[in-house]
């Protein structure tokens, strides 16, 4: 099953990196959101470090939304999804493959976004880089897991691009709250032990929702 999932993810990523439109748009979009934030604050009134966690997470949220929207839209062209469902692989490995592809996609965008964020807002992240990456990874897994499941559903509805955020945001809020708090603690130079509570919650959310989405996914595609 893992092998099938990997093949599927590789197919998606290959399509992505050959055409490069989606990934480039997402990266440019991230840069633009960061710029908008720069003009949306008064640098003399609010210190960058106070606003930094929110800037980082709002940017990542929007970028993830873009990535998730395209995950199943890709399969709608030429009824590719039907072909996928006819293939002798389990439904769950389709989910896993999509999940892996989405995670790589979002992680790429985040990998570009994080240094730019540090650069634009003059936030030093190097000394907490490892812990920060851990927070970002944990939060990203959680909402991409739910998002992959939901995008399989919304792709086949009217106004998919609008419906996905409406459905997904309530599920993103708890992990976002924890991620923002953990990021704030890290950026303020607090020891990692102060953030472990939030990290544990994020990990619990990941385990629960990856499992749940894995179990529920077949119900969204069975014909």
């Amino acid at each position, binding site marked *: 099953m893992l092998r099938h999932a990997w093949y599927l993810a590789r197919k998606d990523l290959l399509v992505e990196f050959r055409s490069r439109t989606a990934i480039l748009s997402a990266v440019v979009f991230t840069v633009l959101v960061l710029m908008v934030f720069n003009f949306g604050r008064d640098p003399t009134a609010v210190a960058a470090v106070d606003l930094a966690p929110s800037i980082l997470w709002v940017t990542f949220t929007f970028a993830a939304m873009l990535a998730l929207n395209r995950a199943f839209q890709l399969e709608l062209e030429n009824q590719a999804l039907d072909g996928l469902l006819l293939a002798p692989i389990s439904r769950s490995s389709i989910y896993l493959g999509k999940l892996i592809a989405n995670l790589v996609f979002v992680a790429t965008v985040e990998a570009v976004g994080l240094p730019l964020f540090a650069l634009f807002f003059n936030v030093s992240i190097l000394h907490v880089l490892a812990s920060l990456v851990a927070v970002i990874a944990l939060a990203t897994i959680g909402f991409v897991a*739910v998002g992959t*499941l939901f995008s399989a559903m919304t792709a086949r509805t009217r*106004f998919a691009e609008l*419906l996905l955020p409406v*459905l997904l945001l309530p599920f993103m809020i*708890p992990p976002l*709250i924890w991620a923002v708090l953990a990021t704030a603690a890290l950026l303020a130079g607090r020891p990692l032990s102060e953030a472990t509570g939030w990290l544990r919650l994020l990990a619990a959310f990941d385990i629960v929702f990856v499992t749940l989405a894995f179990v529920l996914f077949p*119900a*969204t595609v069975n014909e």
Partner: protein
Amino acid sequence: MKLLKTGRWITGIGLVLLAAVYVRALAFTPVERFQGPAQKIYYVHVPSAVVSMMAMGLVGLAGILFLLLKDQRFDRFGEASAEVGTAFSVVMLTTGPIWAKPIWGTWWTWDARLTLTLFLFLLFLGYLLLRGAVTDPGLKARYSAVLGICGLVLLPFIHLSVYLFRTLHPQPIVLKPSAPSLPGEMLMTLLMSFVVFVILYVGFVMQRYALSLLREEAPHA
């Protein structure tokens, strides 16, 4: 239709009892010492909050049962429960600020519990929007079951967050590990109010369920 009629009767009885509970709450239940008459809204706010949580829980349960048994009745029940739950969460979200203004001095604050109940409301709306956006009835039922189950699983996380944050919202005083710390008469009124809200929920859901049956039977619905 029998179901519709029964639903109407139950709702009617619920409304009469609601009026009766409010007479009791206003005239025969002691006034809270610090909050004064503002506290009276408690008897609407808390039961509606609990009933909307319950409604979300039942939407999730109906989703699980639907996916397991593929019985259309669970889907209809989920839809009904979600719509009624939306109505109750509107009651919760409107009575809250009315109480908060004199007591906290602000209509709204981004307190954990407030934020997350707002998201409960948005979850209901998302559920109903998803139903509206899918045309195929089979897909609609399966999609909403999946979303309902996810909502059910999200609820414990919401609860967990509420307890972990320092919060301005009064902590639960009835459903907590130790004994209820509410004076007997207030507790009685609150419990009666709970019962009335559950009766109203049942009445509304029965009517809504009957409505979707009628819609399915109608030739060009």
